[in-house]
């Protein structure tokens, strides 16, 4: 997979490294600011409120 990616990239080796660095940065940005915050609401149950299963507003306390 990564070998194929390396072969697909154009230019001499240092241009490919630069392109890869930019790609990695873009992927990291997407993960940190969009994917991880979205995932966090499912995998990280954290309750900070006291309450019965139903809050006074009728909304579930999560």
């Amino acid at each position, binding site marked *: *997979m990564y070998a194929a990616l390396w072969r697909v990239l154009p230019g001499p080796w240092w241009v490919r490294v630069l392109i890869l660095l930019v790609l990695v940065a873009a992927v990291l940005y997407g993960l*940190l600011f969009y994917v991880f*915050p979205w995932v966090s*609401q499912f995998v990280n149950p954290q*309750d900070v409120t006291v309450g*019965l299963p139903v809050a006074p507003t009728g*909304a579930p306390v999560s």
Partner: protein
Amino acid sequence: MDEAVSGLGRAARREQNPPRRTSVVGVIGEVLITAGVIVLLYVVWQLWVGDLIYGAERNAEGTQLSQEWAEQYEGEDPVVAAPEPDPSAPATPVTVPPPVLPEAGDGETFAVMRIPRFGSDYIVPMAGGVTRSRTLDPIGIGHYPGTKMPGEAGNFAVAAHRTTWGKPFNRIADLHVGDAIVVETQDGWYTYRFRTLQYVRPNEVDVLLPVPQAMDVPAGTAYITMTSCSPMYAMTERIVAYGVFESFTPRTAGEPASLQAVA
């Protein structure tokens, strides 16, 4: 001589070989390794990087709100503002009866919280509602619907994360008795003084009563109740911090002394 020739021949053959085909097993392996790295990255984000990002965001938003309110006040007609305090008079803290705000809607930011014990740059926005999706995750501190608003006799109850999402109440257990908990709104500063900590089970809603944990007792004083998770990274208990209302300082009087840094 022969060896050199054969060596050259091997090199030439290697160059002529077509690039290796991508194998299915190889791709699966690389996908699995990538997935593992992403999971590790998630942990790093959850425990450190995310808090840095969100913590800075919260403080920036809170600071911006505070500045907007200050500018709004300065932009007001000076005739409407209170008379200049007599400079020769001894400096006494200006306090007035606290104005009571209408209860904020779900996810509607109405104040910022400032706690000098948590640092001079600690300014976290506060909004109505205590749902994670609408208030606690995106905004910071949430106000329990149905509890009192700042300065009102009774219990002003709020909740926030102690870990992750910028962890506004991360250092809640570091509060000292008498520490200022300041709620800044458009009108001014409500100063509460921290009194005590308590650990309760998640279903103990009587910490939200007008007089915390006292059933059917009319409240003559204004209290603040801050709840968060305990132990950190878990949800088996809640940590609760109580404070007592001290005074309200209107914008005309400038920032109250309670906002000064603590040692």
